[in-house]
């Protein structure tokens, strides 16, 4: 019908104009809702005060999504009015955004319900007794037997339906690869499949309704956000029409011959294609999903203190994960990082307390350097063993893992716990001139200026180029161009705020006078709380809440990530790492010194582990000989979640960052929502598998 209108058939004219007007009305509505949410008139979260000015996360998302929604509506209406083919694609975006809004609101119900329900299941075996009686401190619920039976059967039916829905929804991702699969996606799903999907979907709605009735009646898990029925209504109101419209629009478009060749253009596929360009697609999806999930499940998660705590927890492991990613890309594997961490931490402490063989008791910085040199030697031993014996690295590092552990257990300090405070009266302190801060600010400004000089013209150029060819580029054209322009603005904003901040720091220290000295703890410099440097944050002009435990290791970690990312992607050394892991023979035939690359990577891992050991020791100046046990597998997990292939040749440093962040979020988030931390290892296991499956799927989509 709409297609007929677009083709200019006479009978369809009135309807088309009507639809255009209707969609224009939706646009106005979208703006109104965005306005309402932003100013607190339309509550989507828990509100005590209707005029409260601080929005919660869901409301932020809703505001932005509604603005995009309204813009898409406007463009669709205009396109329909002008009878452009492209209005069909714009209507897809409209429905897609509606889908996202609905799904987000629904998720904010589903996740808390699901969590609470699973916690209940974990405690109570007999559901009926759970609903009728007061057992184990749970409050009794005022439901009649009939009501409770209905609720329980709804829940069970819904859960089964949910599983079946997943099974039905997952396969279409896969067959994209070959021609047959494409045909399968072009053809609208059969009536039978549609009917099943509808039945399943009704089941899911059942579970939600039952959940919202049953679950909130159980107090006791106060950290999980309470379920609100009105959100369910709002969510369904958006989600169902969005889904219906999206399916319809896609069918119309796919039936139109002219657009069939541009089959890869539905918003979902666009996003998948964009993601497929990155090695860490699975990690990006996982990161967003887990972040949003915890944010929606509990109000405690998106707090500065929680974020800071999980960042501080994974910063040291994240530094090691960078090195492990390098090694894994070059096709090798290191199990000995935990032991290297132990040896380095212990030798660092030993050098400062009992003294090194020749140098005696050392100051923190020389001791740190010497300890990192120890790590360097251990890494070199790994590498030399590997390239001289040609034994698989799994075996080599399994051996050295046990052997290095023996060093910490026997050789150093006789297996005792070494504490700094047992040997020194106070923690070491260094005096830093304020000029250092000024110099750092200037250096930061220079780096920012250089980045801006390099990045901005390029981004501008690309955005303009994408904009100018947007019509020849199918649907990617316009949306891709908009994405690029938004990216440009974002980068501009970030750079500008960094500059403003650095200028503030600079002027503060210049005005404070140059000659003054500041006393800073050595350990704080390595990995202390940022606030403990100087007088409570005055020095760095950052608004960090006192409760947030922001440690300096986080800063170092991000610097390392940036540095090693550049090396991996933009130097010939990085190129030879990829080649070594991707096809060792080809690398050798092209003149890459494969053995040297491997040796270098083993040393890089070891040195980064050594640096991580210094951080760990500085955070808690007492070292147990068993320090770092089990670390190697955690770090490998982070790397694999981040998209690196165990077989080598593929991966990214940013992926390892995301992997580490996912790891940390789960560690902190599970505790915050009230799930026992013992579930953590199991959850990580599931996440690894899901992430790798996602990565494989996305790489499959890339082939098309």
């Amino acid at each position, binding site marked *: 019908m709409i297609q007929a209108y677009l083709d200019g058939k006479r009978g369809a004219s009135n309807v088309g104009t009507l639809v255009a007007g209707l969609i224009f009305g939706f646009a106005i509505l979208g703006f109104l809702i965005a306005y309402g949410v932003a100013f607190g008139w339309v509550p989507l979260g828990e509100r005590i005060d209707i005029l409260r000015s601080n929005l919660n996360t869901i409301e932020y998302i809703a505001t932005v999504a509604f603005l995009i929604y309204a813009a898409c509506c406007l463009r669709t209406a205009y396109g329909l009015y002008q009878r452009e083919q492209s209005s069909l694609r714009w209507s897809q975006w409209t429905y897609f955004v509606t889908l996202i809004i609905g799904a987000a609101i629904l998720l904010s119900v589903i996740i808390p319900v699901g969590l609470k329900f699973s916690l209940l299941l974990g405690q109570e075996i007999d559901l009926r007794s759970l609903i009728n009686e007061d057992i184990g401190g749970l409050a009794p619920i005022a439901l009649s037997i009939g009501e409770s039976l209905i609720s329980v059967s709804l829940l069970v039916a819904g859960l089964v339906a949910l599983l079946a829905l997943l099974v039905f929804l997952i396969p279409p991702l896969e067959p994209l690869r070959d021609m047959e699969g494409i045909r399968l996606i072009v053809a609208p799903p059969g009536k039978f499949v549609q009917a099943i999907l509808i039945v399943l979907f009704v089941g899911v709605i059942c579970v939600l309704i039952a959940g919202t009735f049953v679950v909130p009646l159980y107090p006791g898990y106060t950290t999980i956000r309470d379920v609100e029925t009105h959100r369910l209504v709002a969510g369904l109101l958006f989600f169902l029409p969005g889904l219906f419209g999206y399916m319809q629009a896609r069918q119309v478009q796919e039936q139109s011959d002219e657009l069939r060749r541009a089959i890869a253009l539905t918003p979902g596929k666009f996003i998948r294609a964009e993601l497929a360009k990155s090695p860490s697609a699975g990690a990006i999806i996982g990161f967003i999903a887990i972040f949003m999930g915890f944010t929606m499940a509990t109000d405690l998660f998106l707090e500065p203190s929680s974020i800071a705590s999980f960042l501080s927890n994974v910063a040291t492991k994240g530094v090691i994960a960078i090195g492990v990613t390098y090694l894994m890309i070059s096709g090798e594997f290191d199990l000995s990082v935990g032991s290297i961490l132990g040896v380095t931490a212990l030798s660092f402490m030993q050098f400062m307390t009992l003294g090194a063989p020749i140098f005696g008791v050392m100051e923190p910085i020389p001791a740190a350097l010497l300890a990192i040199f120890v790590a360097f030697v251990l890494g070199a031993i790994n590498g030399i063993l590997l390239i001289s014996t040609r034994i698989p690295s799994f075996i080599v590092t399994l051996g050295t893992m046990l052997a290095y552990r023996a060093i910490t257990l026997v050789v150093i300090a006789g297996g005792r716990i070494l504490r700094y405070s047992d040997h020194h009266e106070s923690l070491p302190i260094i005096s830093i001139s304020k000029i250092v801060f000024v110099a750092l600010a200037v250096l930061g400004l220079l780096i920012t200026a250089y980045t801006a000089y390099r990045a901005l013209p390029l981004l501008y150029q690309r955005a303009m180029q994408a904009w100018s060819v947007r019509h020849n580029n199918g649907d990617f054209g316009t949306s891709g161009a908009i994405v690029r322009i938004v990216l440009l603005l974002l980068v501009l904003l970030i750079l500008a705020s960094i500059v403003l901040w650095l200028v503030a720091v600079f002027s503060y220290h210049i005005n404070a006078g140059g000659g003054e000295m500041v006393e800073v703890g050595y350990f704080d410099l390595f990995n202390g709380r940022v606030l403990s440097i100087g007088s409570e944050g005055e020095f760095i002009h950052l608004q960090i809440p006192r409760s947030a435990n922001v440690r300096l290791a986080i800063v170092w970690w991000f610097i390392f990530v940036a540095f090693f990312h550049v090396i991996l992607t933009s*130097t010939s050394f990085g*190129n*030879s790492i990829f080649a070594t892991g*991707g096809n060792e023979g080809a*690398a050798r035939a*092209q003149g890459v010194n494969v053995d040297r690359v491997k040796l270098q990577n083993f040393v890089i891992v070891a040195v980064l582990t050594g640096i991580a050991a210094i951080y760990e020791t500085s955070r808690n100046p007492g070292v147990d000989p068993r320090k770092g046990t089990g670390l190697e597998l955690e770090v490998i997990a982070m790397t694999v979640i981040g998209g690196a292939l165990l077989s080598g040749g593929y991966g990214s440093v940013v992926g390892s960052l995301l992997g580490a962040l996912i790891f940390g979020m789960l560690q902190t988030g599970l505790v915050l929502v009230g799930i026992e931390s013992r579930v953590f290892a199991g959850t990580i296991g599931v996440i690894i598998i899901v992430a790798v499956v996602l990565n494989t799927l996305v790489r499959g989509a890339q082939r098309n």
Partner: protein
Amino acid sequence: MQYEQMNDNALVDMIDIHKYFGSVQVLRGINFHVDRGEIVGLLGDNGAGKSTLIKVLTGYHSLTRGQIYFDDEAVKINSPHDARELGIETVHQDLALVPLMSIARNFWLGQEPTYEIGPFKFLDKKMMARESIQALADVGIHVRDSEETVGNMSGGERQSIAIGRAVYFGKKLLILDEPTSALSVGETQKVLDYTIAAKEKGMSVIFITHNIRHVYEVADRFTIIERGHKLGDFYKSEVTENEVADMIVTGQIPERLRLYEEEEGGD
């Protein structure tokens, strides 16, 4: 036959090459030479030692005994890097490209162009993209996007990229190791065209294959290897396609050619 006089026009002269892998003798005293601007077809059945001979020449394997002269100078080739320095470019049968890397990165692997900022050297990605697309277009391969990964391309496309790269970087000698074994008829014809293009650029070419049909058209001379020994050198004017095919299969020189063979040994 054991001693071959140095040829004035020879670009490469490999004399009495032995290569043992442990106790297995793969090459047992082979003499092999390539003249300037000549296309040599290096023929032999599977396992005859063709690839090993080439891997010795390109530094992938070290030789057990023997001497290599390149451009009239005795050389020692210990690594692929050394071979490259001499101006030898190779397209290996199984070691051509890294599937997970992009076209541009594969093209420049091992000799990436860089620009310097202070002490740091960064890849010149713009030049890598531009030059690789241009160079491949010059040998008749048109790629849309130099950032595409090689793993997504067909066998023929990959082989073409490997050959395009070798032609671009090759200065004196181009070695093609079984370049046509996985290709369709049309793609094979393209490879033969590149070979002639390389010859016209003034390079010598060694074309290794066990399928005489693929090389008879373009080669000037055939060297046939049989179980680590050289069966002989034959100019195209001297032999027919069928005779060469027979020699590869039977390992025997036909009665008619034995005299020529001896004469050639002395020239």
